[in-house]
């Protein structure tokens, strides 16, 4: 018994002891992805992490810690040792919408992290069922405004990207459609294709194939420029809707207190990954948007997080959306 206690104590002391930082990284790095394997954030994390591993000379192991709209995994990441061996892939929800959705959130997106850099964004698409009685975004917006709660808006569950961006859309066009919740994008799309619900907003990677296949129609893409994946779909601005530009960005964070030289090293690896032709192509194939060089710095990510929290909080609070 005493031996066990001694051993425990020895392990504990040694674990908390500071590690040599000079030749970071010396062992594999864990990247927490706060969603189940296979989702858009997971895929982006794996593609980017794969290339970063090669630059750093140590493997980046993706650990999926799903739960509570991604906040479970990010909470764990925020509380991890700031030694550079635990980093995480946060996104629009966990570092933008979460403070409004989860009043008991255990981290502050703008204070508890050492931002590394923006990885990739996936634009939001406004899509509707094939038979929707409108030709373009203008007609669509008018229809939704006129018919109010007779229109059914699908979303992938409270806290999901499609939920937050959907609420944002309805607040921009000042309409109140009936909300229908689904568990994930798949079943929501299924009912959209089956003409059971009328419209939804979601990440391009989830809905683009159905638009290309003619099963649903896209009215606009909520970015400044059109996407090469769907060149025929106009941007919201082109289609005459101001104030709805939104993308589900994904970014790499480390826990607060991570030494600056480690942050710099990780950022360097990330920037290198985003300039790699093969990595870029894979991200673009998903309909992703590669951030500009100016957007790839830790400082600009910090600014993005602050502006996103400021943007989402009033919108979601006004809609009465909360996950607790």
């Amino acid at each position, binding site marked *: 018994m005493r031996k066990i206690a001694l051993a425990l104590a020895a392990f504990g002391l040694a674990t908390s002891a500071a590690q040599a930082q000079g030749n970071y990284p010396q062992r594999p790095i864990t990247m927490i992805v706060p969603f*189940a*394997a*296979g*989702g*858009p954030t*997971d*895929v982006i994390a*794996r*593609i980017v992490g*794969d290339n970063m591993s090669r630059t750093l000379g140590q493997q980046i192991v*993706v*650990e*999926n*810690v*799903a*739960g*509570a709209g991604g906040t*479970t995994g990010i*909470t764990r990441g925020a509380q991890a040792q700031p030694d550079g061996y635990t980093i995480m892939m946060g996104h629009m929800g966990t570092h933008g919408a979460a403070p409004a*959705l989860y009043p*008991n959130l255990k981290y502050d997106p703008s204070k508890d992290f050492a931002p590394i850099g923006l990885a990739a964004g996936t634009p939001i698409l406004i899509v509707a069922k094939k038979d929707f009685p409108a030709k373009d975004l203008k007609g669509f917006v008018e229809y939704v405004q006129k018919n109010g709660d007779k229109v*059914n808006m699908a979303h992938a*569950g*409270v*806290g999901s990207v499609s939920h937050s961006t959907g609420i944002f859309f309805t607040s921009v066009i000042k309409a109140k459609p*009936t*909300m*229908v*919740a*689904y*568990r*994930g994008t*798949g*079943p929501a*799309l*299924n*009912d959209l*294709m*089956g003409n*059971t*619900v009328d419209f939804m907003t979601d990440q391009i*990677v989830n809905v*683009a*194939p*159905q638009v*290309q*296949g*003619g*099963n649903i129609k896209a009215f606009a893409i909520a970015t400044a420029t059109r996407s090469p994946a769907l060149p025929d779909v106009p941007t919201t601005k082109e289609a005459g809707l101001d104030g709805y530009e939104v993308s589900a960005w994904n970014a790499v964070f480390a826990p607060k207190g991570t030494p600056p030289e480690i942050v710099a090293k990780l950022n360097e690896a990330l920037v290198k990954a985003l300039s790699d032709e093969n990595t870029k192509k*894979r991200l673009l*194939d*998903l309909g992703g948007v590669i951030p500009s060089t100016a957007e790839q710095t830790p400082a600009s990510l910090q600014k993005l997080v602050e502006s996103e929290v400021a943007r989402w909080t009033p919108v979601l609070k006004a809609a009465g*959306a*909360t*996950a*607790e």
Partner: protein
Amino acid sequence: MGDLFSNLNHGFSIALTFQNLGLAFLGCLVGTLVGVLPGVGPIATIAMLLPITFGLEPVGALIMLAGIYYGAQYGGSTTAILVNIPGEATSVVTTLDGHQMARQGRAGVALGIAAIGSFFAGTVATVVIAALGAPLTRLALIFGPAEYFSLMVMGLVFAVVLARGSILKAIAMIVLGVLLSTVGTDLETGQERLTFGLPFLSDGIDFAVLAMGIFGVAEILRNLDHTETRNVVQQAIGRLLPNREDFRQSWRPVLRGTTIGAILGILPGNGAVLGPFASYTMEKKLAKDPSRFGRGAIEGVAGPEAANNAGAQTSFIPLLTLGIPPNAVMALMVGAMTIHGIVPGPQVMTRNPDLFWGMIASMWIGNLMLLIINLPLVGVWVRLLKVPYHLMFPAILMFCCIGIYSINSLPTDVMFIGLFGIVGYILIKFGFEPAPLLLGFVLGKLLEENLRRALILSRGSLDTFIERPISAALLAVAAVLLVLALLPSIRKGRDEVFVE
């Protein structure tokens, strides 16, 4: 029809390359070995093994993943039979008679008939996918929330039928299972329900955690109480493979199971989960002596296992033809495809014919591999039962802990298998069965979500369930089944109403 053959031919020309054959074999083998760990089902296995396919080119990677899926699926059935721990919802039924067979020394026969039934079902399902995949997809789109709700109601009635003992207790367990499924954040409003304010309950109870607890751990606790019965399994090993008599009893259930499983698997709302339950219900109703069920009836393994595998296969249809994943396993497949740069959708068939037809062909090859790998392994698995129980159960315990931890990396999940183990043990002590509880739990989420969705869409009118013809038909079937299930006990007289 000529098209079909040239397409399949094209598919086989891709799947039969040396490399892809090897990958299919490797996938099946690794999938079986990981899936056979107690409590580790297909979802966990695929999530674990997804990264090892990254280095491969897309077609090979998906062929290997499909192999892992079949392997893990069969591995889950193996643990269901050997140690009474279902790896996933669909092998819950297999525990009922499969584990009983193992206790009677017929583990080899149960494993063998499961492998052979699965192979047959897989072969039929492959042809169904190749020939009817595209047109059947259109049918699936007719299913809206109202239809799914009625389908789930029908599923709950199956649960009543498959109960062994007291019907009242079975109903209590089903309702309790549905109640457990409502724990967590409410999908429509985002409010937390029944979570005690605990953050790790906010996403509800994980199926793997519940199943491992009330089946795996509770089974260990129950065995610890019965020193005399727990050695039965090791003593009698018996025949390793099914004989002619076994086949005579099983071929009809396999045929029926395949049909049911294949049809339900096409539905995008995870209809495949109902396949084995439906098949079991049907076999029990058709049997001359239904009382054999739950006591080691081979039909109760052959039918559901065939349905399970047929459904597992046809649930690729919504994914391959629509790009819509019908369940968690297929959602992982979507992730795997996107990582390899293939965004699943209606165009996969035309844009990546190599992938589409190669994968269909490899389905059949995967099933063949599974048979080749598993028939010799039956002997090994059965021999595992010879390990004395006082060493067996600590090993199972550790595998359960590691398995559940590796799914979400959450120590709380590990603690919960302990908690549910105790709950399961109490339930067994009080004469309740865990299987209906688990079925209620699995269907509960779908039931509530679709009920609320249907009522939101109908603006609160319950008529929607009767006005829509498919929904009405399903409800009618459910009502008839329920009456049939209750009739025998009612007829037996009032004294036996609650004890079949």
